[in-house]
């Protein structure tokens, strides 16, 4: 059994959270409240020392020192604008002037919109279409059963193409899913069901892994029963 007070605290907090599995109780609620408070505080401290202090405070301090020493106004003064926008964001806490937080919010939304418009199109649309179509020809055996084909085709790539295309047809709700569109969408649904089944399998693996990690901490690090 561990003699480290930190391990004991971690183990007791772990068991406190697990107690919810039996039923809701004050011990769980206390542990949950500690988690919420410590999480918020962790982000609060990390952001100050790793972002606000080096990027905002040190830049502005350098700009002020340069000005005081007669070096004039340098480009670091521009960081004052970001500081002002940051404080405007915090004004959301004051209902009467909360509307001013729309300015920094608009700034972030504009940045994200500008970045996403190009990158999502390039990486998640065009490159995906490219990687679906290009492997179709040029690789593969050039044979189908007993026949020799005049071109090479990759059967795996062909199935991926069929699955991607039919899946997209399924999501295209502007056309009614009847006749040819309906049959195509039905094939798409089958591919999507396998996709969701695979996602379910991986999700189970993920959740179980987290539990294994916790149990290993309890029986290994805390109780010392496993080495």
């Amino acid at each position, binding site marked *: 059994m561990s003699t480290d007070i930190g391990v004991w605290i971690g183990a007791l907090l772990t068991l406190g959270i697990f107690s919810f599995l039996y039923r809701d109780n004050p011990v769980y609620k206390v542990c949950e409240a500690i*988690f919420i408070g410590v999480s918020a505080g962790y982000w609060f401290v990390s952001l100050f*020392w790793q972002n606000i202090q080096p990027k905002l405070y040190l830049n502005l301090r350098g700009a002020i020192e340069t000005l005081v020493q007669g070096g004039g106004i340098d480009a670091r003064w521009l960081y004052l604008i970001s500081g002002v926008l940051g404080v405007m964001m915090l004004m959301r806490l004051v209902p009467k002037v909360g509307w001013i937080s729309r300015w920094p919010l608009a700034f972030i939304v*504009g940045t994200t919109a500008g970045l996403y*418009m190009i990158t999502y199109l390039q990486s998640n649309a065009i490159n995906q279409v490219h990687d679906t179509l290009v492997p179709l020809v040029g690789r593969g055996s050039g044979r189908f059963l007993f026949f020799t084909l005049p071109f090479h085709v990759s059967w795996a790539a062909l199935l991926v193409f069929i699955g991607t295309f039919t899946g997209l047809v399924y999501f295209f709700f502007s056309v009614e899913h009847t006749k040819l569109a309906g049959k195509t969408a039905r094939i798409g649904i089958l*591919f999507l069901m396998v996709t969701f089944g*695979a996602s379910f399998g991986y999700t189970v693996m993920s959740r179980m892994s987290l539990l294994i990690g916790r149990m290993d901490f309890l029986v290994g690090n805390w109780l010392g029963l496993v080495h």
Partner: protein
Amino acid sequence: MKRRIPLLLTTLVGVIFVVQFFVPHKPFSDMQGLLSDWVQIIAAFAIWLGALNLMRVSAENVQRRERNWPYAAIIIASFLAISVVGFFFSGGTHFQDPGTPFDWMYQNVYNPLSATMFAMLAFYVASASYRAFRARNREATLLLLAGFLVMLGRVPVGDKLSGFLPEGYRLSNLADLIMNIPNKAGQRAIMIGIALGIVSTSLRLILGIEKSHLGGEG
């Protein structure tokens, strides 16, 4: 004023970031660099806003003696404990160094709590699957079968169970096939659909057609 300037800001910043993608030279590269730094600082303040709002709501709960107010007091106490330790007793910028009080709190309080919260999901996924996962029709059966094959194929016991089959035809190989063909196809279809949706929403935001990020009137 309250809505026009933010809309103008969204458009201006959005256009700069789109243009600099195609013209990565001065002055757009300099503008992009400066605006990126500003975004990082504003994003930090945005997260600070969340933490401070939590404190405000908890303080109100304690002041008004709302239901479960003692837990709100614990939230405030925990927040103050780690904040005070992190700001004043952990060596400033060296706050994350091994052996500091902040590092101790991270390893022995935050780490176990965070890990355990997510570990609880394992129990709920098992319970929910037992109660709700039903092979009611062909699609659901296909989903279930795919899930079973992937779950068995991705652990060593899968190959032990299918060890009588020749190499290359066992459960792990079947799981590989499922992940590389139908899974890849389905994920790609979803990904392309989402990407096109994001592109259209981004364009609407930049052109000022979409105003939901500005909230209600006033």
